[in-house]
């Protein structure tokens, strides 16, 4: 399953790259892509809704100002 989320206040390109790396490492996540330019995040997982809690936590850790629109 693949889902795309909008991101608000993703201000730095390096943070986007760090977020992507961190999310990819989460258990249950098959693939992730964070686009700084499009301000979007695509998560691929068997059950996207189940991993979203971890993803949000992970993003908050890397870039606390950035908000994921669920």
């Amino acid at each position, binding site marked *: 399953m693949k889902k795309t989320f909008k991101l608000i206040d993703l201000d730095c*390109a*390096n943070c986007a790259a*760090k977020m992507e790396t961190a999310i990819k490492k989460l258990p249950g996540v098959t693939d992730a*892509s964070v*686009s*700084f*330019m499009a301000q*979007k995040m695509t998560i691929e997982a068997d059950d996207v809704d189940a991993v979203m809690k971890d993803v949000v936590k992970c993003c908050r850790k890397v870039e*606390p100002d950035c908000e994921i629109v669920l």
Partner: protein
Amino acid sequence: MTRKQKKMLWRILISFVLFTAALLLPTIWLSGPIPLLSVIQDQGGCGAYALAKWPLFLIPYLVIGWDVLWKAVRNIMNGQVFDENFLMCVATIGALIIGEFPEAVAVMLFYQVGELFQNVAVSRSRQSISELMDIRPDYANIQRDGQLVQVDPEEVAVGDVIVIKAGERVPLDGVVLEGASALDTAALTGESLPRDVAAGDEVISGCVNLSGLLHVKVGKPFGQSTVARILDLVENSSEKKAQAEHFITKFARYYTPIVVFAALALAVIPSLLDGQWGIWVPRALNFLVVSCPCALVISIPLSFFGGIGGASKQGILVKGSNYLEALAQAGVVVFDKTGTLTQGKFSVTAVHPDGMSQEELLELAALAEQFSTHPISKSIVAAWGGTPDQSRAADVEEIAGHGVRAVIDGRTVLAGNGKLMAREGIPLTLDHDHPGTVIHVAVEGRYAGHLVIADQPKATSAQALRELKAAGVRQTVMLTGDAQGAAQAVANELGLDRFYSQLLPAGKVERVENLLQEKSPKETLVFVGDGINDAPVLSRADIGVAMGALGSDAAIEAADIVLMDDDLLKLTAAVRIARKTLSIVRQNVVFALGVKLLVLILSAVGLANMWAAVFADVGVSVLAILNASRMLKAK
């Protein structure tokens, strides 16, 4: 500017005023010492107590830098140590400790100005790209109880009739029931010539109705309409990242820690040797400022994003940065013949009469063939031009696999292939060895000449192939299921390097696989087809390009790059845009790394101050962004 950016601008201005005030304020002399707040200064030859400057500079420093400090603390607590906030803090606090107050404030101020500038530049280019792709219709007009109501296009069901007024965007795909108009397809295809539509024609969402009122019966729900599919495709294109992007993010992961440790080494090792901490520590602080990787990380996706945006403006949809990157290295371009290099429809290319005029021969053939539905017969009628007079032809008899026999104006006319002539025992008196299909005509048992019917190359194909070669494509190859002769003729006319004829669909895949093995690993193989029946080849090639995709679902699905109309010149435009994007990416990487490296070296030997270091960080980012935004205007 957003509210956040405006707020930042105010902070910068306030801090700047306070900073200037602190710089200009004269020394205030004190009568006696105050702990922490007084320093001993020289007053007319003897030492006296003066008010210390640091509180004056600390105010603008905190005004401008509090959020950087706060973010650094917060990120360290989250286990993210080496980020730019932390590096800026260490560098500026270090400067404060060694007594360089104005530098500390100025560096923080300059850093924030750069960040703001960067922020504005990125949101500007993001905005201009989304404006390029602004083809989403806002509403659809629907007739309800005799009144026109505006509804959300998503609410319109298949089979509903929508009304499109002049100047409005077509919201959903459908068929015109009533009305005639010209449609501007520029937003979809980049083609500026309007397309005329009338009742019975299909219209595609995203076009703009230029003149008349149209009543359209909706053929597809919004989610499956052309405009929604295109938007979906373009919006998701940033998902597939280019090699260059992966490289740079990976690079950034190592770059920052390495520079930070180099800074640490620079601060400690020489100082232990010569004891001059006051020289080495400031130099090391410069290193920290330079160690931010943001300029690099930001400029590359921005360049690709701009390239994809600029391409879509011209009706070229690129499904990901990786494809744009691969297209820039195109070395072998393989074309499908029918519908790609050629028009995909038959037309009369030559009329060779024997004993009558060309017009007479064409007329006879058209009259004889008028009742046939075969594409070749239709092309003869089309070449003749008028509507044939049915009453002039009698006793029309189709001879399967051979041709037609008819009595026209009282004379028996035969029109068909060589087998028909042989069967009737009519000798062929003209040389008839032409590429394409030859239709012979005989009148009253006497040979009257022949017509040559072929699938003609598109008007722009030859030019497009020349331009591809000029753009650095090494080899052009044509694949076709047609006979050798027809293939040879097209290949010669267009100047293709190689061609393979009489191929079945599976044979095309095989050929492409052979070509993939032959090419050098540095170059990529592009396959261009019309998206019909060539999905396996499209996916097998490094880059599959489908053309003439306006309205074709299969092509949009299977291809990596989609050309919205069927003009091959779009392909050369795509290659040009890809090359330009890649050259901007390269420029940015070399420039950003070069400046950073230069400043690192100059800092190490003490020739660069913290101003240069801040320029190497944010200044370079801004320049890289400006360079990348050139892609938006690419032709």
